[in-house]
């Protein structure tokens, strides 16, 4: 996966997107790549795992070779206006920025194009070998992936319009972009992932996603159930394992990541995931 230029980690809320995006970023950094890790939709998700405190729009080096940033739409808009349109020195409350703000709320696709556009613009820069995004959840990822197309339908002319083709092409290019759908072996994450897969295969906006099941339990090799907590824990483990297997049979993952018991800090989790992901990525 790390030979791609843009990795988008999505999944239903609560499945561990930030942890996995952080783990991938740490792994990529370890292998010597120049990495940009981006909090696209949930501020604080990545920074908790890097242990850095809140991130800003301006990328900050959090490990040697690993920069991290938080998507801030108003900053992205000003940057877009400065770099792509050539309007400089605009303040936050300038009339044009205000007009864009209004549009971003009222017109679909604008909000998303600014966000996904920022990620794609960073991909185009040669500063990074790979951009790894803690992407919006599956419920919203469609409107982000589709934003270039949505805009090109709504806006017949203009400069934004002229860039949407490049954006769509980068997203669809299997050499450039890989979408990772993370899920848990439970009913709702599985059904939501299936829905997303159906939508994706209909829309052809990106190549088929890589499916990664998170928090998968190992099979318990000993079939005994002695009395007391040993047996109680064994029973709980076996029934959770069996339930998980049922969902994994229904939606087969390309890769699985283990359940980490008793692990408290996000930093610990990300470091373990980086080790685990080495076999995958």
């Amino acid at each position: 996966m790390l030979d791609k230029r843009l990795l988008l980690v999505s999944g239903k809320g609560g499945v561990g997107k930030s942890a996995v995006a952080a783990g991938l970023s740490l792994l990529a950094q370890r292998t010597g790549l120049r990495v940009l890790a981006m909090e696209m939709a949930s501020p604080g998700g990545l920074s908790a795992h890097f242990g850095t405190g809140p991130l800003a729009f301006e990328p900050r080096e959090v490990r040697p070779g690993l920069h991290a940033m938080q998507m801030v739409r108003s900053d992205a808009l000003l940057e877009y206006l400065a770099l792509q349109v050539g309007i400089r020195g605009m303040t936050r409350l300038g009339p044009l920025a205000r007009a864009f703000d209004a549009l971003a709320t009222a017109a679909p696709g604008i909000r998303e194009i600014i966000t996904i556009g920022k990620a794609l613009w960073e991909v185009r820069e040669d500063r990074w070998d790979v951009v790894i995004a803690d992407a919006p959840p599956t419920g919203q990822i469609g409107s982000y992936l589709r934003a270039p197309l949505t805009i090109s339908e709504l806006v017949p002319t203009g400069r934004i319009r002229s860039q949407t083709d490049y954006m769509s092409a980068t997203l669809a290019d299997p050499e450039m972009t890989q979408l990772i759908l993370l899920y848990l072996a439970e009913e709702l994450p599985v059904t939501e992932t299936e829905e997303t897969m159906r939508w994706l295969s209909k829309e052809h906006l990106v190549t088929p996603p890589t499916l990664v099941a998170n928090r998968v339990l190992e099979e318990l090799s000993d079939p005994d159930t002695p009395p007391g907590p040993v047996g109680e824990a064994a029973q709980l483990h076996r029934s959770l394992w069996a339930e998980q297997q049922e969902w994994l049979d229904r939606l087969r993952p390309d890769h699985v990541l283990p359940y980490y018991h008793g692990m408290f800090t996000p930093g610990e989790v990300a470091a373990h995931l980086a080790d685990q992901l080495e076999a995958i990525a």
Partner: protein
Amino acid sequence: MTRTLLITGAGGVGKTTVAAAIAVRAARHGMRTLVVTVDPARRLASALGVQDLGNEPQPHAEEDNLWAAMLDAGASWRAVAMRHAEPEVASRLADNEFFRAASEHFPASQSYAAADQAATFVQAQAWDLVVVDTPPAGGGIDFFTAPAQMADLVGGRLLRWITGGPLPGRRAFFNLAARPVLRMADAILGSDLLERVAEFLLDLRTTYDGVSQRGREIERVLRSSAIFVVTTSDPAPVREAIRFYRELPGLATSPAAVIFNRILPEHWAEATAPSGTSPALEQNLARWSAETVRQRDTREEFSSRYGAHVATIPWSTSPPTDLDGLAALLDEARELPWQEVGIS
């Protein structure tokens, strides 16, 4: 007098199941109870008898006193705005591509529609208890902020942003549209885009009185509701749960409880395997024991830092598939503030 209980929290923590279980308990306690759910898992939906239903409350086939309704996930404030629009405006809005698109994409749209529907059920005064499983958008906070956001959008704040001044009339706007800055915006976005957006906002504004009055009614219902926040012990949903203690004041009452779901037996925390236990089982116990400790620490930190009333529900290994299973889910629950539900 109808009591309202809002069950909030992040997605994936078992919120819908907890809401259903509380409703079944209340119904069996003799209260006429309506449970309003969003996007239930298939098995839960069939237990509640809502799998094929729209958003009209239906009495349960097997349980007296229990009604269930499913919030329409496709509903949006589009319908709400249309309800408050003059016929001529409504038909113009229906044709406006931005209105159609915005009503699908406005972030608080589903939350607004959900809050509106829930308030309607409460105002009907047909039940003793209405239990609402809130949509997970924005960690659930959107449900509480949606009425104000909606009034903001309709009220023309955006329009004032575009023009940078007081809200213009229709004719005044078109004069403003000739201003250089808007011409520049048009150059970037394409011709007359802003104008079309503004036109839709001007139309939408005519619904303001109706929408904002409705918003205040909804807010009144939310303010007089009891709130249970559901979470697991995982960091992400706990972060969302914390928001209800930090961000709710002013929008609603402080949560009556934070319910930690999927709790492991306390005595596992100190448990060790007796000698002679196989390495596999010993390691398994050690892992789950560590998890038990982590869960306990998480609850203690939450309670001491936010002064929250903490309740727990044990980890049930097979999701309930019928009403008895739902009711049994709470057999081993601890510290649930039943008085908030009206059960002493």
